[in-house]
């Protein structure tokens, strides 16, 4: 598939990296900053073109004429939309994705219907990250929470801790604890290594566990894996940018939210638009301020400023001052590795959160959702199976009979409104949404082949 990426910012670079990793893709990146391009080209196998991303001449030079997928990720909503319009008008590019941040555009659904703006899909990385963090705060104890089938099913990653009902037990005992709840352990990582789960597997402390469950059963399932944490009531958000502001907006009705913003102008603007949040003007790395605002009595401290160094420092400081749980936005994977020392409980990487929605577009077959897990080494995807029994290799067969590639497993089905947990005797029907967990993302190609009929 020929992919053209406009903009080599944080998200653009990650997208290029992920897409180029799959041999079937040919990726070209356009940006106005030649230095960034040179650096990118030296590390990733992509072609680069320097220039203004919305100029037709630049697009032509980048090969828009036979591009299958245009991904406009520059920092300007308007440039992204215009680039899609031009690609559509001049070359009828089949699929056009634009990053659009302003809610003023995205709140008008009609703008993105056929015949209106030539944007097939809009993505808003900040919104994705915000909602991701919101899910983590609403599900205390989880390291990762991702949605499938519009949120009807969720995949949750978390650490097993003493006090969890399942810890020290075989997985088969799960159905004795939760006789009528739908949940299934999808994967277990022990000391960073994948352990294929089956009924005999014993859960140990510090195992990293992924399970899938219908949304309403998540909390009960989490109690299986770790001691129930106290309810989250007090949240401090460090940083009042787009993410911090939206996060406060999402949380302020159910939690006591305080938001710290350093820029006085921004603090004032944010405070005018929030209703129940206490907006504090100051630096989130200011010990006095944190103590004054009772950081020791805080359930979640979320550092979401633009500067990841500031996020790391303020989260560590908050932890030392007594915050129960800290969360920080960290872009660089290497920083993420440093974080295992418990001073930052959850590191959120925006590129990883965002990349799934792009990956879903480049996969063959009807892939609706892709979530990148464990910093990109594993993946969970939701795909729709089409076709008839005689042409498909999965329809009409039970899950136990399907030979899955190594490390890949079907963990759940979404059939209409219902979420069905995968058992070896579950039959797959046409139009089922199948949720697959891949411990090794290199198996993606094999999995696609399996589900892609004819």
């Amino acid at each position: 598939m020929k992919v053209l990426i406009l903009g080599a910012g944080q998200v653009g670079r990650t997208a290029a990296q992920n897409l180029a990793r799959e041999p079937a893709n040919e990726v070209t990146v356009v940006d106005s900053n030649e230095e960034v391009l040179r650096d990118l080209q030296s590390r990733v196998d992509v072609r680069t073109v320097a220039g203004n991303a919305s100029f037709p001449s630049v697009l032509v030079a980048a090969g828009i004429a036979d591009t299958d997928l245009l991904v406009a990720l520059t920092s300007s909503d308007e440039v992204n939309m215009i680039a899609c319009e031009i690609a559509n008008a001049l070359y009828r590019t089949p699929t056009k994705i634009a990053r659009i941040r302003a809610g003023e555009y995205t709140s008008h659904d009609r703008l993105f219907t056929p015949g209106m703006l030539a944007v097939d899909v809009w993505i808003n990385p900040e919104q994705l990250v915000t909602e991701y963090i919101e899910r983590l705060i609403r599900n205390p104890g989880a390291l990762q929470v991702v949605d499938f089938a519009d949120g009807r099913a969720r995949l949750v990653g978390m650490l097993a801790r003493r006090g969890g009902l399942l810890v020290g037990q075989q997985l088969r005992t799960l159905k004795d604890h939760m006789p009528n709840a739908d949940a299934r352990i999808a994967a277990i990582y022990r000391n960073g290594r994948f352990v294929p789960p089956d009924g005999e597997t014993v859960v140990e402390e510090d195992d990293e566990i992924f399970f899938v469950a219908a949304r309403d059963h998540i909390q009960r399932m989490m109690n299986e894996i770790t001691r129930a944490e106290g309810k989250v009531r007090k949240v401090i958000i460090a940083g009042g940018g787009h993410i911090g502001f939206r996060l406060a907006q999402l949380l302020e009705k159910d939690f006591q939210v305080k938001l710290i913003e350093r820029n006085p102008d921004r603090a004032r603007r944010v405070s005018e638009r929030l209703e129940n949040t206490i907006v504090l003007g100051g630096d989130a790395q200011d010990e006095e301020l944190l103590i004054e605002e009772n950081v020791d009595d805080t359930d979640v401290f979320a550092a979401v400023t633009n500067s990841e160094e500031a996020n790391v420092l303020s989260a560590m400081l908050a932890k030392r001052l007594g915050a129960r749980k800290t969360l920080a936005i960290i872009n660089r994977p290497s920083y993420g590795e440093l974080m295992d020392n418990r001073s930052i409980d959850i590191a959120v990487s925006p590129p990883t959160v965002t990349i799934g929605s792009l990956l879903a577009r480049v996969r063959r077959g009807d892939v609706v959702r892709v979530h990148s897990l464990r910093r990109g080494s594993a993946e969970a995807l939701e795909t729709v199976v089409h076709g008839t029994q005689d042409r498909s290799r999965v329809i009409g067969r039970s899950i136990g009979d399907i030979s899955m590639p190594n490390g890949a497993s079907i963990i759940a089905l979404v059939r209409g409104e219902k979420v069905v947990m995968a058992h070896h005797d579950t039959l797959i029907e046409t139009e089922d949404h199948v949720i697959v967990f891949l411990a090794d993302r290199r198996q993606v190609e094999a999995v696609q082949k399996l589900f892609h009929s004819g």
Partner: protein
Amino acid sequence: MRSLLAIVNVLGALLFLFAAYYLLPVITALVYGETDELWVFLQCAAATAVAGAALLLVTRRHRAELKPRDGYLLVSLSWIAVTAAAAVPFLLGVPRLSFTDAFFESMSGLSTTGSTVMTGLDSLPHAVNMWRCALHWLGGMGIIVLAVAVLPLLGVGGMQMYRAEAPGPVKDAKLTPRITETAKALWLSYAGMTAVCILALWGAGMPGFDAICHGFSVMSLGGFSTHDASVGWFNSPLIEFVMILFMLLASINFSTHFMALRKGEFSAYRRDPEARWVFVWLGASVVAVTLALWLPGIYPDLLGTIRHSAFNVVALATTSGFMTEDYAQWPIFAPMWMLFLSCVIPNTGSTGGGIKMFRALIMIKQAFREMFVLVHPAAVAPLKIAGQAVPNRVIYSVLAFVFVYFMTVLLLTFTLLASGMDFISAFTATIASVNNAGPGLGTVGPASNYGVLTDFQTWVCALAMLLGRIEIFTFLILFTPSFWRK
């Protein structure tokens, strides 16, 4: 000097326009065959028209676009000039009335205060009673707003004048792109609702003439009645109910009414930051006053207590000043509380007086904000009303206004005390006049009227009404050196 002549020019146009307003009493006099009054009002109309035309002609070379600051002078001057012109029919038409009293009555009418110096209202000629209530109606929405609506010559300066006259702290909200259209929209909503009010009163059993007069004074939150016993004369719960309803409507911002009428939807009222509080405060107050009357057993039955409490609380709190009972005889808590409410109940852009609900809300929230910041010193806490942040500039100006308001009340009270009045009468007369409410307590209580005052005291009260109507600053600004410095 040049700009002064330009102001006089506009003033001439205003007077000329005002002459047409005499049509109302002239028609009344014709209908009731009151030939003496017909003659008086025709003379007055002619004199006003001639005076206006003369001013217009003399200063016609100096016609110019008015500068923003000219608005303050024009508004103050035109209110005084129109009040003086409107006083002449009282002087000529009512026997044994001094100029002081005639001016007071005229000011009380135009400022929608509704306190009177006349007794024997029931036997006054119809034309005079019509004139009193018609002055209310004109003053309710404002002379200048009307002028802006019908006089194109004010041009861009019209906005400035509109702001100088319109009551309330937030005056930048234009309903339509052009100020003339905004003024027309306001007057149209006002006139339309007045028509409905008159019909409703008539339907509730008022005689036609009384319905028209009371319709005028209800919608303008004035308070003049055609009877000495005010609304008590009718002794009809239905009429009182209709009046309560329309007094409540008139105490809401007319921009909100216009919006609701134009789109035909109720949501404009829900978005209005002030309207809801009128109902909350008045509801609680009616309950409190009812209890204050019921517990000592002032009235024998509960239903009657509720009726009297509801009507008189709403009438005084909305700054109308109608009455059905001599509430000066009630426990002192009740009338004092009602007078206090008259400071805060009317909304921005309504026809009422006082501090206005919007300013009261700002002050209450500012107080809470100060306490909040004591707990969270680093907090960035803008003051919000209905989700909208209020700029600090507005908060300062509100605080300054309230300070000046209370200083005005204080100084005028002292002035009345110095003139030999007792404290309760002096204090309540000042409050009632500054709020454009009407009756006070003591010697100026609901059972008597302002006729007992000395000439000096009458002038002080008239000044208080003017200050209250054009919101103090517009008038006081004329006495600051910086206003006159070029």
